[in-house]
């Protein structure tokens, strides 16, 4: 059980939490992740909506074959899911990890 009122380190955590670096780190994460999540959810939900209200568009055959717009969009769902993940992972490696490293040096007082 953690009893925070008797925790001597608690002030350190408060210091970190109010520090500009920490809020910057959190803000940057939120500014990227929340819009991205909203965007890809909208994309999945719009697909369902199109399937219901835009039959003509979705069943349009490309090149006269059996391939329809709906089929391409459907496969696109999987492709886009994968693409989003790749983008996120690259972003996290580039933009989050280096700053975390910096924050660590500040916390531990180690030289840069």
């Amino acid at each position, binding site marked *: 059980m953690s009893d925070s009122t008797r925790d001597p380190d608690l002030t350190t955590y408060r210091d970190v939490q109010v520090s500009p670096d920490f809020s910057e780190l959190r803000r940057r994460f939120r500014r990227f992740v929340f819009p991205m999540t909203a965007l890809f959810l909208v994309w999945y939900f719009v697909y369902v909506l199109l399937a219901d209200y835009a039959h003509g568009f979705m069943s349009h055959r490309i090149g006269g074959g059996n391939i329809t717009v709906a089929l391409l969009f459907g496969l696109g769902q999987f492709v886009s899911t994968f693409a989003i993940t790749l983008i996120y992972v690259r972003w996290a490696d580039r933009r989050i990890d280096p700053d975390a490293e910096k924050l*660590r040096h500040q916390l531990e007082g180690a030289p840069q």
Partner: protein
Amino acid sequence: MPAAISVAAIGLVVVATIGIGLFGLRISRTTSDFYVASRAVSPRWNASAISGEYLSAASFLGVAGLVLVNGADMLWFSVGYTVGYLMLLVLVAAPLRRSGAYTLPDFAETRFESAAVRRICAGLVVGIGTLYLLPQLQGAGLAVQTVTGAPPQVGAAVVTVIVVINVAAGGMRSITFVQAFQYWLKLTALAAPIFVILLVWHQPTGVLDSLHGAAAAWAEPLSRAGGRDHPLYATYSLLLALCFGTMGLPHVLVRFYTNPDGRAARRTTVVVLALLGLFYLFPPMYAVLGRTFAPDLVATGGDTVVLELPGRIFPGTAGDLLGALVAAGAFAAFLSTSSGLTVAIAGVIDQDLLRSRLHRWTGGDYVAVSSFRIAALIAMIVPYLAFTVTGALSLADTVGLAFALASSTFCPLLVLGIWWRRMSTTGAAAGLVVGGIAASAAALVNVSGGPQGGWPRALVGQPAAWTMPLAFVTVIVVSKLTPDRIPAGTARSMVRLHTPEAVDVDRGPATLTNRAAGSLRPPPHA
């Protein structure tokens, strides 16, 4: 004769599962091996294991059956399962991994500093896990019945016994190897018949052309092919449940702790998504072929289409062999998902119910691992008994309800708990209780027959679209009303959750991993 080949194939899977499990046992030496596979599983191994565990009976048999019966809408199941994994990655995986908590109840306790919230979470983990184990046992029963004609209890009993043996013996590390093997077995078993069919016919378009006419309405999106009312609402609700429910599945989260760090966890997820996407290409193909070659299965619910299709298309030895392969893959699906769930549920039963009592009864004279083993037995026996009592629901329906329950309880707890610092302990408890009661009430009504049609049936059959927002609103309103119940350590929790692992802050003595490492001894025969 075909039955004999299939039984032999299932037997091989069982033997291989136990064999790999025993191999894992030999190298499973410490408590950390037991619970988190020593956090030393490489991303590729781990990704195969996660996919092997995630692709359950519902994915292997249920999705094809649903698409066969209900039409193209049901493709949302495969998209939803995959997207659920992505949501888990971007919203909660990294912060949770950093919290140092190893199970959902651990997270709840450290974040909200409340034993009551912890207990509610423990109950929910057991509930969701049991609800998710039911369809696995059901699928096993169905597979054995289709292959040999034996009653469903036989297949379910076989899975129960094997899983208990494997989990109790080897813990997480051996399970990881078993599940990685099972992913590739499942993929091969599902893909091979399709490739044989395409090779034999040379022209895949011929298959598609044969669908024109009879199945045209079925292939239309949001048709009412399965007799569903309000298909748009039902599809949205299902999609919500799958997207936001995955993060609340007990066996999925535990897996993230087998990664050495957050970076490895992210890499693992990329591979997992590729593996899942690859797998989900195949169930719809079975459904499409089933419409042409096994239309009679539509009337029986379609869950057996994957098992029966090879025999229908290739009567004779080729069909028997392919059928045996598919049966083996299906069995791998039941075994791997059930093992993962059992590890997760048993961990919670062990820590929250059993260990302290056992400690008291025996006066401290016991080996900790044996309480985990007893917990594993309980975790599997209860769903088996429930299975023999409740009888058959459609595979994917039961799974859908488990997802709805997870998205209405753990999703608000995790998302708000990680991102909203004004969330109070009372708010967390209220959200869990309200969401949990609403979703399980819907599940109960559904299981016991439920309303016959129209809006009531749509709302009860796919409850997530109203139970999830209800839970979120409850958390927010109650938290606003009880600002004095915001946990005192919120500042520390937030720093822990949001500073990446590289930052060497003390992640707390209250977390399980530290506690367990100090208090447990290795398994007796290691």
